[in-house]
């Protein structure tokens, strides 16, 4: 299993990459900055599983909290509204 590198409360940016194949990082969140909400455990990498490989080492999975206004600059709800998304560690970098 890959070592978890991030702590709850830490600022992270989602990598803005465009790999082919089965990816579980939605397009709309790539390149956005948020905060680690919690560590969810480690799971076989779905991008590898989709290629019929074992997905190991398991990738740490986090829930990352984004301010809606960070994700959508024209968001017109409350400035406190948030979006929380599960993202694998290899998609995150320190912000």
């Amino acid at each position, binding site marked *: 299993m890959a070592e978890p590198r991030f702590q709850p409360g830490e600022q992270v940016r989602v990598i803005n990459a465009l790999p082919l194949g089965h990816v*579980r990082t*939605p397009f709309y969140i790539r390149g956005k900055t948020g905060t680690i909400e919690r560590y969810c455990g480690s799971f076989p990498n779905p991008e590898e599983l989709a290629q019929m490989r074992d997905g190991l080492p398991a990738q740490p999975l986090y829930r990352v909290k984004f301010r809606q206004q960070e994700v959508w600059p024209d968001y017109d709800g409350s400035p406190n509204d*948030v979006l*929380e998304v599960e*993202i694998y560690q290899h998609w995150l970098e320190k912000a």
Partner: protein
Amino acid sequence: MNDPGPYRPLTYFQLMEISLRELLVEKGVVTEGEVAEEVEAMRKRGYERGARVVARAWVDPQYKERLLANGTKACEELGLEIPALKLLVVENTPEVHNAIVCTLCSCYPRMLLGIPPEWYKSRNYRSRMVREPRAVLAEFGLDLPAHVTIRVHDSTADMRYLVLPMRPAGTEGWEEERLAALVTRDSMIGVAVAKGPND
């Protein structure tokens, strides 16, 4: 005589399903009967299990704490086996409203809520719930005041989510079973609140 409609050839996925099923039966992995039973069981499963969990959390504050700390384990306490499901329960309060969506496909806590409604799988809901949740909730008849924070959870990977709605006012002293009848499927997805005592 019933009109069976125009002839339509099987789709790619229908063919794949039949081929795989027939292979599994031929190799003795499952029987046709077992497959039929499982399909029946899935069809019958409603959201009653989810409602039981919520009602228990409403009457038992310690259970609620355990449920929020580890949803999967707390379900097991009630005899609800939810294999392959890491359940996160998120709590609604007067200040915070939670709602669930899966923008990538249609991840849904089927073991607790049954088969997802059609709209949950629609592109409309999946794309707009993360973009303009207040407008979407208003279309469900839920107008949240501006001071309530909305937390939208995009179920993109291995977690599954259940919203713990607020217990309706005017239900003090109610039994668990009576409370469970107020817990709707939509209130556990977060597009509605629980029914009131007179609804």
